[in-house]
């Protein structure tokens, strides 16, 4: 298609608007309400142009160009109209550019400059007070130009549904809920509105006065919190992060972020950051600053001594889901090739060990099978054991959007109310720990009614008869008794899910963190094989990973049983391969898991632990025991960005670099490998984790010569088949999804297409087992634990941001019925007691939050640590502890 703009001819693809063609060809047309994400609006009329043969002026953001169209963008008539629009907008509010935070980035200011408007010609309206009530966002309706971009973003992008236009004509205003203050509204402060606002009407409070846009440096990198892998831009002034925005067009988040990702960055520049190595003084028993040389030498000496006296298996290492692939690779290489043991693991043990084991056995690969952007291709999505909008907020937005647009019907199965329940066609509460019974129950109904994919099962799976015989025992009536879900609901779920052409399952810790974690995961796999939902877009078993690089840490072999790329340590060929690559003899015995390492440390069998970027004191079950075990450990080395609860009991502490201070790769939950870019320098003498590991290795006799993290990346791709074609350069801005075996391979958006990684999908009969600890007279309530939106994991990072702490403090959620019986009201102080310990916290009591008999505590808080209460009972295969069900008693204080 060829069009003429201002006398010049341009080629453009069909379907583009005049504004899009102009933008692409560098022709300036002022526009305000249009944004590539929120789409054409035609509201502000700043973008009007003349089109030959069309009557009057046309809004260029809405008119699609046609072959031969003749467009004029700069006639007197056009400019006069544009000037009037901008002049009226300037006049309608107080646009005080001198002090406005948006100065330099404001699209209204830019339009006024372009059109040569010196000052507004009209009188100002009445004064409106800015809304200062929200922790992170300030709204100033006086500067609002009513373009509607924030409303569009809030409702149709992030689907938080807080903003709308209220009133009419002159009084029209953007309102929160029923026109209440933003801080009192249902706003979750994701900041999408602030990112989309073209003027200074919605701004980030914490960035005010911290430098003008042209003074700041912008660096695109990947968020360090959950596993969604949101790309964000760090805006830095000097060596400080002063603002964060989401990267528009990024594959996993398209500009969206959550409150943590956007506003929880204070930890990077926190005064509490570790800046020098610390060594525990032998006399005073206190941690004292030391030089890098002394600290490295001491650790090398101690490790060598213990290795010599007690053997390499007396040393254990915990890698980290918060550091890069390169750093995890070098860490496990250090433990395996320099120490000489396979005792290396990381916190995936506590979140998705059961997924890795379960899915690897059933399918041949232990990762999330499908991808984020294709969520809306599912006709039905079952959300089980995942509070998606709080733990993976941006994926939550994708799911809400698919539901709102009528593309995907949701079934929510969770022991407590979650936000997605309000978007669901069917929402039920299962009894904590009854997931296998539930899944067997709906498979029973599906098989009875023929609501499953017979051809798929026949062609692509094996062992169907065994599964069929097992689930036959799970009649709806029996399952209803086991799960507390009505027969009617079970039938409805089985029918909706079984009859759907494509159906996806999303799950997270609610499935995995049980003594039956592997069983739960395999049951999900059974269901998806039965319904033929694996290996198709929009289907899949979508295990949502909880930490920024937990997928990468697993891929890099930070696990006791496998080398990088899941090659078993007890497979002689794999062993030989790595011995050759690393030039040393390697142990062929499977090493110890996190939970086992801590247990053995408590028993004195593990003498030394090297913990990189993890905080087991707060993250592991039965905290009192974990602390005791770590205190007993002869030599504890912790490498972190803060003096965490674990670091305070260490013998040596290494100060490390945060995510903002390093280059490297993170792999997100959908197997997308993305690039981290260094934005600021580390504080004091803190170093990137890979440098510390290399220094230590070399002090112990290795001769490693990695100059940059990229050198490590280049080595790891040669031994990790799934990463074979991945390089820093190829990853670019969109990332690459593994498997990507060679440099020509485009990456894999969904797994198991046409064929499972292991050949046939393996179905398995899974009998239901109860949780390890059930409520009784003494401990009558079930406790389940998890995350809240505003905090992350052990709080090491999020709790450095005051606003996040103001939004979410410690609590226990109790049902109204139980609270009434115990005489507890919302906000009361309560004591929670289990067989392992007790904590004090605040009660949250509200309508429909949680069913009778169940309670919930977020695990982020040291002052009310859920893991003092939790049961360390393990899944026999995956060794994952049962964080999701234990018995407690609650008392009013």
């Amino acid at each position, binding site marked *: 298609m060829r069009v003429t703009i201002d006398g010049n001819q341009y080629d453009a693809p069909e379907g583009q608007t005049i504004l899009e063609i102009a933008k692409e060809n560098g022709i300036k047309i002022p526009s305000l309400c249009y944004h590539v994400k929120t789409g054409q609006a035609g509201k502000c009329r700043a973008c009007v142009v003349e089109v030959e043969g069309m009557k009057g002026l046309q809004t260029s953001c809405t008119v699609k160009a046609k072959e031969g169209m003749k467009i004029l963008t700069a006639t007197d008539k056009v400019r006069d109209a544009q000037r009037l629009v901008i002049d009226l907008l300037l006049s309608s509010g107080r646009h005080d550019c001198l002090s406005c935070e948006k100065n330099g980035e404001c699209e209204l200011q830019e339009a006024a400059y372009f059109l040569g408007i010196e000052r507004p010609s009209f009188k100002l309206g*009445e004064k*409106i007070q800015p*809304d200062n009530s929200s922790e992170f966002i300030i709204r100033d*309706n006086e500067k609002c130009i009513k373009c509607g971009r924030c409303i569009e973003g809030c*409702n149709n992008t992030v689907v938080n*549904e*807080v*903003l*709308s*236009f*209220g*009133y*009419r004509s002159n*009084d029209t*205003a953007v*309102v*929160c*809920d*029923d*026109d*209440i*203050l933003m801080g009192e509204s*249902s706003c979750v402060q994701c900041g999408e509105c602030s990112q989309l606002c073209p003027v200074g009407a919605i701004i980030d409070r914490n960035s005010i006065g911290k430098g003008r846009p042209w003074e700041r440096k912008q660096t695109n990198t990947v968020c360090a919190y959950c596993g969604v892998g949101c790309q964000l831009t760090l805006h830095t002034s000097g060596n400080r992060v002063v603002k964060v925005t989401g990267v528009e067009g990024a594959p996993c988040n398209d500009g969206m972020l959550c409150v943590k990702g956007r506003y929880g960055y204070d930890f990077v520049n926190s005064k509490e950051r570790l800046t020098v190595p610390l060594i525990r003084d032998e006399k005073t028993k206190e941690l004292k600053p030391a030089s890098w040389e002394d600290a490295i030498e001491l650790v090398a000496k101690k490790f060598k001594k213990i290795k010599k006296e007690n053997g390499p298996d007396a040393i254990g290492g915990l890698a980290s889901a918060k550091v890069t692939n390169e750093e995890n690779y070098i860490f496990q290489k250090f433990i395996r090739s320099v120490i000489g043991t396979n005792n290396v693991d990381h916190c995936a043990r506590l979140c998705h060990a059961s997924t890795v084991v379960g899915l690897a056995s059933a399918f041949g690969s232990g990762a999330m099978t499908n991808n984020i952007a294709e969520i809306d291709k599912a006709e039905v999505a079952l959300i089980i054991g995942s509070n998606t909008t709080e733990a993976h907020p941006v994926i939550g937005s994708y799911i809400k959007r698919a539901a709102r647009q009528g593309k995907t019907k949701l079934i929510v199965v969770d022991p407590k109310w979650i936000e997605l329940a*309000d*978007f669901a066609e069917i929402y039920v509460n299962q009894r904590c720990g009854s997931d296998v019974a539930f899944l067997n129950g709906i498979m029973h109904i599906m098989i009875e009614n023929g609501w499953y994919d017979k051809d798929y099962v026949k062609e692509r799976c094996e062992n169907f008869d065994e599964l069929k015989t097992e689930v036959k025992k799970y009649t709806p009536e029996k399952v209803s008794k086991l799960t507390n879900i009505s027969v009617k609901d079970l039938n409805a779920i089985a029918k909706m899910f079984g009859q759907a052409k494509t159906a996806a399952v999303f799950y997270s810790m609610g499935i995995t963190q049980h003594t039956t974690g592997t069983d739960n995961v395999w049951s999900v796999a059974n269901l998806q094989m039965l319904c033929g939902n694996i290996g198709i877009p929009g289907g899949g078993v979508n295990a949502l990973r909880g930490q920024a690089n937990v997928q990468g840490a697993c891929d890099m072999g930070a696990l006791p049983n496998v080398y990088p790329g899941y090659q078993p340590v007890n497979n002689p060929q794999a062993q030989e391969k790595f011995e050759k690559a690393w030039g040393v003899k390697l142990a062929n015995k499977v090493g110890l898991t996190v939970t086992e390492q801590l247990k053995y440390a408590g028993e004195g069998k593990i003498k030394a632990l090297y913990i990189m970027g993890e905080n087991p004191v707060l993250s592991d079950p039965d905290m009192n025991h974990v602390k005791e075990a770590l205190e007993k450990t002869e030599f504890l080395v912790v490498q972190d960005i803060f003096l965490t609860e674990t670091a305070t009991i260490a013998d040596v502490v290494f100060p490390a670099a945060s995510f903002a201070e390093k280059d490297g790769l993170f792999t997100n939950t959908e197997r997308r490998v993305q690039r981290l870019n260094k934005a600021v320098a580390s504080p004091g003498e803190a170093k990137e984790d890979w440098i510390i590991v290399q220094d230590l290795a070399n002090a112990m006799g290795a001769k490693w010569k990695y100059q940059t993290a990229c050198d490590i990346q280049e080595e790891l791709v040669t031994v990790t088949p799934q990463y074979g074609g991945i390089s820093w350069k190829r990853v670019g801005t969109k990332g690459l999804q593994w498997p990507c075996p060679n440099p020509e391979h485009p990456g894999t958006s969904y797994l198991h297409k046409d064929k499972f990684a292991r050949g046939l999908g393996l179905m398995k009969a899974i009998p239901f087992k109860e949780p390890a600890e059930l409520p009784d007279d003494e401990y009558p309530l079930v406790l389940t634990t998890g995350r809240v939106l505003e905090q992350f994991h052990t709080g090491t990072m999020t709790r450095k941001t005051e606003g996040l702490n103001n939004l979410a403090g410690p609590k226990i959620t109790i049902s109204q019925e139980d609270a009434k019986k115990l005489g507890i009201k919302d906000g009361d102080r309560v004591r929670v007691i289990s067989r392992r310990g007790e904590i004090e916290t605040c009660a949250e009591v509200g309508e429909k939050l949680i069913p009778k008999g169940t309670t919930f505590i977020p695990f982020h808080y040291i002052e009310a640590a859920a893991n003092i209460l939790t049961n360390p009972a393990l899944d026999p295969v995956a060794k994952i502890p049962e964080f999701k069900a234990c018995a407690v008693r609650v008392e009013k204080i």
Partner: protein
Amino acid sequence: MSNKKCVCVHELTADEKEKIKNFGQILDDYKGKPGALIPVLQIAQKMIGYLPGSVLKMISKGLHEPLAKVYGVATFYHFFTMMPRGKHLIRICLGTACYVRGSKEVLAAFKKELGIDVGGTTADRKFTLEIGRCFGACGLAPVIMVNDDTHQRVKPSKIKEILAQYK
């Protein structure tokens, strides 16, 4: 909050509570029906007389529409009101003809007599005062309407007499 936000809080009367309860039962029938929002708001206003804040929340939950959207629609259309309505609605025409024949004085007299402003309702919920823009009876100006009755050539001195008909 916008400058337009009504911050007055009305205690719901027992009668209103009963009406809201009845409305709740009707609301159930509209669940999941596309385009139900405006008809439901109309029904609510007809049954309860106005749209109390709690009813907007009820509708938002019941229809699974964002509260902000419900509020936006309720404040956009003049037909909807979030203030209690009196039993009788008095509308004073301020159209050109009525205005030049003294309807402004008539309006002032009603305000004084009833002790309320435009848009307000008397404490006994008997009268609500509003303004109109021409009822198409300019020959009879100034004109007012009480409910569906038209009163012509109204003078400030006549208003007590008019109100008495509705007490």
